[in-house]
């Protein structure tokens, strides 16, 4: 049996089924995939559909970036220092979220809560910086109604901000559930989805800070 397995592994290292029956789970003879794999796949499909929504907002922004209607251009209102701090906050937050997932895999209640608090505080710092940027723009009359460029900018970056806020709410809920219910299988699957969501938010932010803020200072 093990010799046959070894032969299959040699001829078909990724278990795509080109070497007869694969013994991997979720591939015919291997039986159904584990619940954790299926849940992760379903949530990944949701995240991809969310990426499609963001791609529509990116496309709208790319089309309207020059349509300033006599208002300020991207070069005049973007503050790269603030963007650098926001980027650092979100990247560090994503890293500590990974630390939390290691703590969950090792069943350490204390470290799970500690890393999640750090993750949440960094996410909160990001949101506060973004709110201060938006309210400053609004106060000087450059709100979303000023020009098509600003409408597209507030919609795209604001949509990401709403996602991060929802993620913070989810993070608080996860901390409470991990505290009250412990490392039950269903709670761990929920936590897996949360970590995927949080890393996904950082991926969207990479696109925003590069293609909106950094390119915007060059336009």
């Amino acid at each position, binding site marked *: 049996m093990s010799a046959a397995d070894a032969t299959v592994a040699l001829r078909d290292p*990724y278990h795509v089924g080109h070497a007869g029956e694969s013994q991997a789970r979720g591939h015919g003879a291997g039986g159904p995939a584990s619940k954790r794999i299926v849940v*992760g796949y379903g949530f*990944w499909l949701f995240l991809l559909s969310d990426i499609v929504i963001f791609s529509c907002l990116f496309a709208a922004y790319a089309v309207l970036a020059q349509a300033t209607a006599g208002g300020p251009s991207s070069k005049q209102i973007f503050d790269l220092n603030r963007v650098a701090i926001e980027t650092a906050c979100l*990247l560090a937050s*994503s890293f500590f979220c990974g630390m939390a997932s290691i703590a969950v895999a090792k069943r350490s209640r204390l470290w799970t809560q500690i890393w999640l608090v750090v993750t949440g505080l960094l996410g909160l710092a990001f949101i506060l910086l973004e709110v201060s940027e938006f309210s400053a723009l609004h106060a000087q009359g450059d709100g979303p109604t000023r020009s098509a460029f600003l409408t597209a900018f507030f919609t795209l970056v604001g949509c990401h901000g709403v996602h991060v806020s929802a993620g913070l709410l989810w993070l608080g809920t996860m901390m409470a559930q991990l505290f009250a219910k412990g490392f039950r299988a269903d709670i761990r699957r929920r936590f897996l989805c949360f970590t995927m969501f949080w890393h996904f938010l950082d991926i969207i932010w990479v696109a925003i800070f590069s293609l909106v803020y950094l390119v915007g200072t060059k336009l």
Partner: protein
Amino acid sequence: MTMNTGHAEHADDDGDDHVPQVSTYLIGLTLAVLLTVASFWAVNTHLIYGPGIPVALASLAIAQMGIHLVFFLHLTTAPDNINNALALAFGLLIVGLIVFGSVWIMWHMNYNLMAMGHPM
């Protein structure tokens, strides 16, 4: 929930034995920081030909997204993960169609309308 269903659920949940490594996240963080610093550096450098800077920034951004996918989201082509990679490929196709399609079409419309408004 009774203890029984709890056990049943635990029994069919097996994908969790694999503990992610701290080193994986540290490598990912290091690479992401390097690429971020490179992006912020690229904006103000004179080493890159000016009109090429947006392309450089887009390349750095795509590279960093790849780093995040591999080291933070642990996307691989392992047997239990191949469906995720295929779904990602389809998602990228849709994103490419939407972004490049929109920019391409709108650029042509602007171009044509400009010619009508201000004949050259």
